[in-house]
């Protein structure tokens, strides 16, 4: 079991009376790939900035390796950051960008036996380490390029190298792939994961892209409205969401009101279904999650429920079918085609149900009545976040 490296304890953050973080408690293990996932404004970037030392929490404590570091400035933390828009230094070439941290560094003088005198790194040492980094990010031969003569993906890699060359214990990444196109983003996801395993340090990754989080992380922290909604492995988060928000944010979910009659028996639409969940009070109202891919379409007479198809979308690998069950619309993903207007039956295996306790999010998610609009929203998730520093237009 790896040991704990960073701990946030009862962290609260408020900007001008606006509560951004609510009593956040989080620990991060050494060598772990942890993702803070949530919609814009959920507090994930603020959490990252607290770890990096760019903001101090209004209340609460931050520990690094057991030492409280609330007041330690960013330049004294063994943490480096890859910023959202890379933040490369435009007047320095690739080599000098990567060497920047090394040039700032002071190490004990090897010639001084007491080990107290501090000296700068030698030019040889700097060149060696920068070359080593250029190798890892496969940008050898680009040393003399200025950042504006690099593609987005290359700038991205320079930003990563510039942080990693300092051999930090933790690398913070703030939506680093947000500005890249889809294809490049997929490649970089793989590359980042590879680099993380190669250098063997902790990555704390911020994103609003659930798929990115599922692909790369060891641990996902789902956040909303300044609070942690759930912490777990990607499998946990997907298969056992804690509330309607998590179920809806990670993947697609049909969330239906139900009542837990007894262990392993849930009632919805006035019918009892076999499930595998237990541990609820008798007749406790619950949210029932059914993933669209866990639903089988069968002839009406064989089905547990019957509904009418209202919308069919071809998605390549499967069809997205919207089915109306007594006014509540479900999303079903299936390889079988059913025409609009068809009466169909559905069958769900006991392990296709996931039962959640009622929460503040109950009833807000999981209905596909506004199906088309929801997809529009998904397509423009590239939201501008953190516009505080920018103000008016950047260039004229």
């Amino acid at each position, binding site marked *: 079991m790896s040991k704990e490296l960073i701990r946030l304890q009862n962290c609260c953050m408020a900007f001008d009376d606006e509560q951004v973080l609510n009593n956040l408690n989080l620990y991060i293990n050494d060598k772990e790939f942890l993702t803070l996932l949530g919609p814009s404004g959920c507090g994930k970037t603020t959490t990252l900035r607290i770890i*990096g030392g*760019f903001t101090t929490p209004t209340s609460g404590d931050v520990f690094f390796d057991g030492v409280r570091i609330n007041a330690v*400035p*960013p*330049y004294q933390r063994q*943490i*480096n*950051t890859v*910023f*959202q*828009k*890379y*933040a*490369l*230094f*435009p*007047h320095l070439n690739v080599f000098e960008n990567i060497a*920047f*941290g090394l040039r*700032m*560094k002071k190490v004990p003088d090897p010639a001084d036996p007491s080990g107290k005198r501090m000296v700068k790194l030698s030019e040889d040492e700097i060149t060696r380490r920068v070359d080593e980094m250029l190798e890892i990010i496969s940008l050898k031969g680009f040393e003399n390029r200025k950042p*504006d*003569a690099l*593609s*987005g993906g290359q700038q991205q890699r320079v930003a990563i190298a*510039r*942080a990693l060359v*300092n051999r930090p214990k933790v690398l913070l990444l703030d939506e680093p792939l947000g*500005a890249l*196109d889809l294809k490049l983003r997929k490649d970089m996801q793989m590359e980042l994961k590879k680099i993380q395993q190669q250098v063997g340090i902790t990555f704390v990754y911020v994103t609003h892209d659930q798929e990115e989080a599922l692909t790369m992380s060891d641990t996902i922290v789902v956040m909303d409205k300044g609070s942690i909604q759930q912490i777990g492995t990607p499998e946990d988060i997907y298969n056992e969401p804690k509330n309607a928000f998590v179920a809806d944010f990670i993947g697609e979910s049909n969330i239906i009101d139900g009542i837990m009659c007894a262990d392993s028996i849930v009632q919805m639409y006035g019918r009892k279904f076999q499930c595998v969940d237990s541990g609820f009070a008798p007749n406790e109202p619950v949210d029932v999650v059914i993933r669209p891919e866990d639903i089988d379409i069968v002839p009406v007479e064989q089905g547990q429920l019957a509904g009418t198809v209202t919308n069919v979308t071809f998605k390549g690998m499967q069809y997205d079918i919207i089915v109306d069950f007594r006014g509540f619309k479900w999303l079903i993903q299936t390889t079988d085609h059913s025409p609009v207007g068809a009466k169909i039956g559905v069958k769900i295996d006991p392990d296709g149900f996931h039962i959640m306790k009622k929460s503040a999010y109950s009833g807000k998610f999981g209905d596909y009545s506004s199906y088309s609009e929801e997809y529009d929203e998904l397509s423009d998730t590239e939201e501008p976040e953190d516009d505080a*520093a*920018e*103000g*008016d*237009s*950047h*260039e*004229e």
Partner: protein
Amino acid sequence: MKKNGFWSRLFMVLVFLFLYAPIFVLIVFSFNATKSRSVWAGFSLQWYVKLFSDEAIMEALRTTLLVSAAASVVACIAGTAAAIGIYALKRKSRGIVLSVNNIPLTNADIVTGVSLSLLFVLAVNAFNSTFGTRWELGFWTLLIAHITFDIPYVILSVLPKLRQLDPNIYEAAQDLGATGFTAFRKVILPDLMPGIVNGLLIAFTMSIDDFVISYFTAGSKVSTLAMEIYAMARRKISPEINAISTLLFASVLILLILINIRQSRQDRLAKRQKAILATKK
């Protein structure tokens, strides 16, 4: 509109004629061999020679260069600091401060001059009566006045550069181990440099150019080139004035061309960067 039509050409010629004919006459007559301001008597450099042997003019030239250089450098430092401060303000207060900053630019020089003069007289008198000194308006008040009216120009040329900065690079430098001051020196300052140098050149030009404000704040013992020309014109009409005005015009023109070249080069660079960024998206 038809391109290069006869009338539009004529119009352009007239505009340039009105704008530059006086200066052209001035330059031509600065090389005139006689004192006459109407008869051309052949080419000569005698007024230039005389100019450079005129002690009062040379003294005024030295004062002008010294004041302009010192004022523009000080204004540069103060203006850059002010620009950074303004940039860090919230949008609403930033707008207010910027409007206040722009008032001196549009305010009549004579009002600025008179008010500065009043303030300096008041301050110097108060100082003298408390400490028993006998200070009067002179080089230092002139310098302060020039710094005052130079600062807004520096602010206006540094602010756009600040807007172009990646808001994260200051934090990125700190993240990589630089203290706040080092981060500013190594990362922010180099990026602002083009704007600062532009501001310096504009401020220097404004200082060399200024007559009205200098006239009210320099006291009776010190004078700048512009003041000297004015005094000469009132005393006696000498072609030396033509010579020195020509020189003044030429040096300001060179500075302006320099500023323009720098600015258009920076604009081109920015455009290219933007184009590259756009293709990457």
